[in-house]
C-alpha cells in the first residue's frame, strides 16, 4: 500500500474537474439534518465530514429496483438481459460500508456470477474516508478487520489541511495520480495511523467476529428473541438500511399496453412477515422472534462461517433506524450474554 497526500483545496478542485468531465460522480451530501449518497452537481455539495448516511452506497450496485430482463409479454424467445449503469467514482465511503461492499462482491461472484451486479461494480472507483465524526451507534472497529481493503481503491484520512491517501489498488493509483496527489513525506504513514485512530467507536461488540459466531452457537432458543420481538414492528427498517443485506424480491411489470414488460428485482427483507412464505401460505418464519434471530444469526454467524467475512460491519444504521429501539446488534448480544 502506498501513502500519498493532497491538500483539501486540491482535492476539491479534482472533484470539480471530475464533475465537469461529464462523468457521473457520487458523494456524500447533506439531506436535511442527515446525510445521503447522491450525484454531485458541484464540488461544494460534497460533505466528507459526516456521521452516517441514511442508506449505504450499495444502492449504486444493487439498486432499490433494477431491471434484469426485458421482454415481449408471453413471448419466451424475447427475453433479453439489461445491465444498468453505475457512477464512475463514489467518494466518501466509510470503512464499514467498504467492508460491506467487499462482502457483496464475494456473494455476487461466488458460485453463479451475477453479472448485473458485477458489471456495475467493475465500472466504479471507490474512494473511502475514515470517519471524522463519531456516530453514537457505530462499532465498525470490532467487526470489519481488514475487509474494507478488499473493496476500496483508496482511502482518505483527514489530516487537517490535507488528506492522507492510502492507495490500495491499480484503480486507486490511477485516481490518485489524476488528482495530482504527491508521495507522502517521511512519517506520513504514522500521521495517517494516528488520525485514523482519533475517532473512537462509542459502542463496541464484546467479541471479535469469530468469537461472536461461536458465541451465537446454541443461542437459538434463548428467551431474549421472543422477549425483544414483542416490541418489533416487523417493519423491515433494520434490514433495508443495512449495507450487508442483499436479499431481493423479483417481480414482472408490464407496460399499460400489456405488450411488453420487465422482470425487476427490488430490495426485500427477512424481517418482513411474509418473507419466508411458500405456496399454500405456509410461513417458515412466522414469529417476529424467529425473524429477529435469523437476522442476528445471519449478521453474526452464517456469513462469517460461509465467507470468512463480516456479516455485520457495525455501521450502526439499524440501531438508528429502529423506531422501537430494539435493533442494535450490540444490545442484543449484551442481553444474550447475561
Amino acid at each position: 500500500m502506498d501513502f500519498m497526500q493532497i491538500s483539501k483545496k486540491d482535492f476539491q478542485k479534482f472533484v470539480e474537474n471530475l464533475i465537469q468531465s461529464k462523468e457521473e460522480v457520487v458523494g456524500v451530501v447533506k439531506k436535511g439534518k442527515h446525510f445521503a449518497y447522491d450525484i454531485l452537481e458541484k464540488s461544494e455539495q460534497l460533505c466528507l465530514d459526516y456521521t452516517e448516511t441514511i442508506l449505504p452506497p450499495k444502492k449504486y450496485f444493487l439498486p432499490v429496483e433494477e431491471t434484469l430482463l426485458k421482454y415481449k409479454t408471453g413471448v419466451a424467445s424475447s427475453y433479453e438481459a439489461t445491465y444498468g449503469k453505475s457512477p464512475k467514482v463514489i467518494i466518501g465511503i466509510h470503512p464499514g460500508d467498504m467492508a460491506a461492499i467487499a462482502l457483496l462482491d464475494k456473494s455476487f461472484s461466488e458460485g453463479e456470477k451475477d453479472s448485473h451486479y458485477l458489471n456495475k461494480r467493475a465500472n466504479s472507483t471507490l474512494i473511502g474516508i475514515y470517519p471524522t465524526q463519531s456516530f453514537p451507534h457505530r462499532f465498525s472497529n470490532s467487526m470489519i478487520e481488514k475487509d474494507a481493503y478488499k473493496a476500496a481503491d483508496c482511502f482518505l484520512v483527514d489530516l487537517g489541511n490535507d488528506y492522507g491517501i492510502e492507495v490500495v489498488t491499480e484503480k486507486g493509483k490511477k485516481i490518485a495520480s489524476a488528482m495530482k496527489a504527491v508521495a507522502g513525506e517521511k512519517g506520513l504513514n504514522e500521521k495517517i495511523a494516528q488520525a485514523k485512530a482519533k475517532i473512537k467507536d462509542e459502542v463496541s461488540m464484546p467479541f471479535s467476529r469469530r468469537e461472536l459466531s461461536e458465541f451465537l452457537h446454541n443461542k437459538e432458543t434463548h428467551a431474549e428473541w421472543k422477549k425483544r420481538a414483542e416490541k418489533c414492528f416487523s417493519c423491515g427498517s433494520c434490514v433495508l438500511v443495512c449495507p450487508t443485506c442483499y436479499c431481493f424480491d423479483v417481480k414482472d411489470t408490464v407496460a399499460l399496453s400489456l405488450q411488453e414488460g420487465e422482470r425487476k428485482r427490488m430490495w426485500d427483507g427477512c424481517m418482513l412477515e411474509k418473507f419466508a412464505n411458500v405456496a399454500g401460505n405456509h410461513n417458515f418464519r412466522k414469529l417476529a422472534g424467529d425473524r429477529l434471530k435469523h437476522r442476528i444469526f445471519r449478521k453474526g454467524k452464517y456469513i462469517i462461517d460461509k465467507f470468512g467475512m463480516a456479516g455485520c460491519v457495525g455501521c450502526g444504521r439499524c440501531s438508528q433506524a429502529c423506531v422501537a429501539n430494539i435493533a442494535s446488534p450490540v444490545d442484543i448480544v449484551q442481553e444474550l450474554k447475561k
Partner: protein
Amino acid sequence: MKPKVAFFDFACCEGCQLQIANLEEEILGVVALVDLVEFREVLTGHAPEYDITFIEGSITRPEDEERLKDIRKRSKILIAFGACATTGGVNKIKNLRNLETVRKEVYQDDWNKPHLNTAPTKAVDEVVKVDYYLHGCPINRNEFLSVVKDLAMGKVPRIPDYPVCVECKLRENECLYDLGKTCLGPIARAGCAAICPSNKSGCEACRGTVPNPNKNAMHEVLAKRNLTVEAIIQEFTMFAVNPEVSK
C-alpha cells in the same frame, strides 16, 4: 372482449374517482384495456352487468346497503376503492359517538328529517363480499394502473401487505421520529410510496394497518414521545385504525 368496468360511489368525497379522471394520458391506455360502461363522474352510460366494479365510499344508510347488494349481484369482480370503501375511512369516526348527537351536530334543527337518516358507518366488506382492495385516501394512481393491468392479464393483483416504513426507507427519507415528529408508518399498510412522510408529514394510516400490526408497540413508542393518551387515541383514530373504532 374488453372487460366491462363500472365505478360507483357511496358516502365519500369522490376524490378517488377524480384520481382516475385526472389520469390524463394514461386514461387512454386504460380505455384501450377496458370498456368503461358506468362512471358518473365522467360519462352518462349504464349497463346491466359488469366484469369489474369499483366501489368508492363507505356505507352509512340502510338503503345504500340494498343498492350495494344489487351492484354486487351484477358484478363479477368487486373492488373496494379508496379508504372509505376499504376500511370505512374518516366516516367511521362517527361510530365513536352517539348517532343522535352526531345528527344534531351536523343537521341542527333538521336532524330528525327522514332523508337525513343515518346508520353506523360500514366498510364495503361489512355489507358484501369484496374481491380486492385498493386502499388509500386518496388511492394511488400507479397502484390503480397496476391493478387494472393485472386483472386484464388474469393475474391476482398484488396489494402491499408490508408497512409504510419499507417504502419510506427505499426513498431514503429522514425518519420523522429522528426529526421529533410522530408517524404511524411502522404499522400502516404501504402502497402510497410513503407520500406523507416524504413530505415531512406523519403517516395517518389511511390504508389501514398491515395484517398483524404491533399496536402495543406503537402505543409504547408514541407514549415515549410524551404523547398523552388522548393524543395517542387521536393518532389512531383518523382512519379507523383504532380497534375500538374499526370493526
